[in-house]
């Protein structure tokens, strides 16, 4: 029942918030209570799982033939569920002052429920249902609360990812039909016949790779990110992108290991391309939000690379990379959103010297940026390091190309920090109108309540990555041996 609560609480919150959310105070209280409650349950699950160290903690199935409601949690899903629950609170706090708050909070909580549903689903049909259910609140969040180009971005987001997931659905049904299996996913699924694996794998990959996203299937991401409201960006970057990588680990590797092994060089290449391309594009951006969006493409490239290696080290790297990117990108999007609320622009060139005028904002921004570029001691490093090492081990020195991306990451991050944090306040020589940053207020107590815990976790994970790897080890080890048996 505990696992069902993880979905039921935010869903109930979404419902109540939609019905009773005309009053701002009520909507805030309900949203905060629901997200805190979800996080509390997630913490209970985390603790229980960490102490039991079995491959599968809970299984919750409604009795009766044909029900699709099967939930399970293991080392692959527990960290991601916890991340979702945490970012759920952050997103609620970050949208404290939006207009039409009842509807906004309702969509946010529904989104949280759907994403947790993806991570907990132990049934192929339920997995797809939750996967698509994610699209609906996100579509409305972007379209209803986004920036100038929100209508276009919302449609593009929906159609693009729906195109991927329609093919994924064909793949899932083919998996069930050709594999001759039920829709339930056992703790250790058996691979389907090698002959039909390739087609199933690539149909599924169409859905997963669009969601991650890998270059060249990424073009929806910058638009969606830039136009989405802050809370939407936090959830989008923080957890939605992880769904694709999760799907590969959860479904593709166990059910189609041969096809996965055959495709892994391609996946690795896509990962490296993403790392380099994302970083290069980020370097060219002047819109701070777009910069963070492209950096997400690069970070998810490391995750894909780690997955593609199919080794335990690589899978651990991917898991660390996902959690770290969730925290870092969540924090960065929050900071950019907070700055935009004050200055009404996100153009890097309009800022300068925020280190003097907004010291709290600037300090946290620098820490998040350093985590993003992969500085050892912060959360970005261990995951990317493990992914690259695992990639070397599996694919050889070609992976050194990822080094270009790492160097570029340093360049775009430090460029942003230099232009925004250092220099003269409100440089009038800038190519765009400078913002009188002295007039802007620094982060207030609520905003610090969002940023400081995230920052603390980023440091903690950087120093002690076993926070995540210990809990994921058993499951990922089993997965790696499954992926390794065929290669």
């Amino acid at each position, binding site marked *: 029942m505990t696992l069902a609560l993880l979905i039921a609480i935010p869903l109930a919150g979404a419902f109540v918030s939609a019905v009773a959310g005309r009053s701002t105070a009520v909507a805030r209280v309900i949203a905060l209570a629901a997200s805190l409650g979800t996080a509390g349950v997630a913490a209970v699950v985390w603790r229980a799982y960490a102490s039991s160290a079995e491959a599968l903690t809970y299984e919750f199935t*409604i009795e*009766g*033939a*044909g*029900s*699709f*409601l099967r939930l399970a949690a293991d080392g692959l899903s527990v960290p991601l569920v916890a991340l979702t629950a945490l970012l759920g609170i952050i997103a609620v706090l970050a949208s404290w002052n939006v207009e039409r708050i009842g509807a906004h909070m309702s969509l946010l909580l529904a989104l949280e429920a759907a994403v947790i549903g993806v991570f907990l689903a132990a049934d192929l*049909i*339920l997995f*797809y*249902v*939750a996967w*698509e*259910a994610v*699209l*609906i609140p996100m*579509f*409305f969040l972007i*379209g*209803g609360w986004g920036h100038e180009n*929100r*209508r276009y971005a*919302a*449609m593009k987001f*929906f*159609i693009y990812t*729906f*195109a991927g997931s*329609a*093919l994924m*659905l*064909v793949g899932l*049904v*083919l998996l*069930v*039909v*050709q594999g001759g299996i039920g829709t339930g996913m056992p703790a250790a699924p058996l691979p389907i016949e090698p002959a039909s694996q390739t*087609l199933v794998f690539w*149909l599924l990959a169409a859905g997963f790779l669009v969601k991650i996203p890998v270059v060249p299937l990424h073009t929806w991401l910058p638009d969606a990110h830039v136009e989405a409201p802050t809370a939407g960006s936090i959830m989008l970057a923080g957890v939605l992108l992880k769904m694709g990588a999760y799907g590969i680990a959860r479904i593709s590797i166990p059910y189609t290991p041969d096809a996965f092994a055959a495709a892994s060089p391609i996946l690795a290449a896509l990962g490296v391309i993403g790392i380099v391309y994302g970083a290069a594009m980020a370097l060219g951006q002047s819109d701070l939000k777009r910069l963070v969006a492209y950096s997400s493409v690069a970070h998810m490239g490391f995750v894909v690379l780690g997955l593609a290696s199919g080794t335990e080290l690589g899978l651990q790297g991917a898991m660390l990379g996902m959690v770290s990117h969730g925290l870092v990108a969540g924090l960065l999007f929050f900071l950019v959103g907070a700055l935009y609320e004050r200055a009404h622009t996100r153009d890097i060139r309009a800022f300068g010297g925020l280190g003097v005028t907004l010291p709290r904002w600037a300090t946290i921004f620098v820490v998040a940026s350093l985590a993003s570029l992969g500085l050892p001691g912060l959360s970005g490093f261990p995951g990317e390091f493990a992914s690259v090492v695992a990639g070397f081990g599996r694919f050889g020195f070609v992976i050194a190309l990822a080094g270009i991306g790492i160097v570029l990451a340093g360049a775009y991050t430090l460029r942003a920090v230099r232009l925004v944090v250092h220099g003269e306040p409100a440089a009038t020589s800038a190519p765009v109108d400078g913002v009188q940053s002295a007039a802007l207020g620094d982060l207030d107590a609520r905003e610090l309540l969002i940023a400081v815990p995230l920052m603390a976790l980023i440091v903690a994970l950087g120093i002690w990555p076993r926070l995540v790897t210990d809990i994921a080890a058993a499951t990922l080890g089993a997965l790696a041996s499954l992926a390794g048996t065929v290669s």
Partner: protein
Amino acid sequence: MDLALPLAAWLVPVLVLGGVVLGLVADALDRRPSAIVLIALGLGSASVAGFVLSGGTQPGIAMGVLAYGSGFTALPALGYSLAALAVIAGFRRYATADRGPGMAALIALGSVFAHALLAGLDLMVLFVSLSGLAVVAYALVAGAGTRRAEESAVRYFVQGTIASGLTLYGLALVFGLTGGDASFLAGSSALGSAESRPALLALALVLSAFAFKLGAFPFHAWVPDAYENADSTSAAFLSSVPKLAALVALLVIVRGTLFQADLFAPATSLLVAIGVGSLLFGSFGMVRQQSVARLLGYSGIAQVGYGLLAISSGDAGIQATIVFIVTYAVGASAAFIALEAVGRVRPDWDGTRAGMAGIARRSPVLGAALTVAMLSLTGIPLFAGFWGKLHVFAALLSNDSVVLAIAAGVAAVVSFGGYGSVIRAAYFEDSSDDEKAAGERGGAPLVVSIVLALAILALGIVPLLTGISRVYAVFSL
């Protein structure tokens, strides 16, 4: 011939016809509101009776021509409920216009013809019900009363007569091949031993007749016209109940009764071609439509494609066809009745997407109902339409038709360009002028929209908990 007449076979249509007769009497006495109430009562009680009588019964055949029991009663009962809801949603329209009670009576009559088409196992019944439905459809389109409606009814009529001709030729050919036996079951063996070429020709003609009735490619031209120009409540009926009946009737004819499997095999590719053509033509056609009713017309063309593909995929497709058409019929009714409600909330609405701008701000409940209908028609999970699409995919894939399944998936994605644009207009665009004063809250159409939206959600979510069979088993044949 068994002449026994069980309750399940006769009670349901008699309730409807009784309502129609009483309604027309009331109309003759100039009591139009009472007339509409009587007709709606007839339809409503028939639908309740149908669902009750269908439960737990084995299918049987009454008087050698009409199947009854299980899905053969439950599916018509669904048709009667949708017809009843269309009449209720259009209460004010039908109770105020001169020929309003006549329109309501036509909807009721049409649903009886649909019942006969769906459950009839006889060539004569088939021909009479197809022709009857056609006449009802022409009259409903013309009944909107505008010049454009009359014009499109005439066009529809001209195209329809050609289709009727094809039907007549086809049925006559079958009649000849079976040696004058009009019953499907008796005719089946005669057709099986007949010369294969005339039998195939007969099949092709019958398929064309159904393709026209269903509005499938390449016999689709009348659909967008008719739906756009009919009033929304009549379109809600036209887009759902006759299609439900025709698709199931086609399923019955080609899977198990008149045309046996080995005879039908060569025609499968014809069915696939019609299906894929409808799917792609309809989906791509939707995207650029400005008029929402026209957009839903193209949507109807596309959706029929899924149904035909399901029929084409053998025994695996039988359940898929039923689940699909049930979810589609509910979704299409919901969409058109929501449009009727839009017209109430914004009386000067011109029928375009742009004219719907910001309607969800004005009436959040209407926005939600409209969204539910659109997402269900797209085939998004949590809404009924998903199960329909899922079953069609499963039927195609268990038949190894991966390419067709992918084509169906692509068409669904493209179709969101149309459905999504309606949601986009309702939610994301701002309405141009302040309209606090104009319009009303939505009245009966809004209530019916909510009922249908809740039904879509229930049909979408409950199977997740209980399994698909518990919910849709009632409709299985």
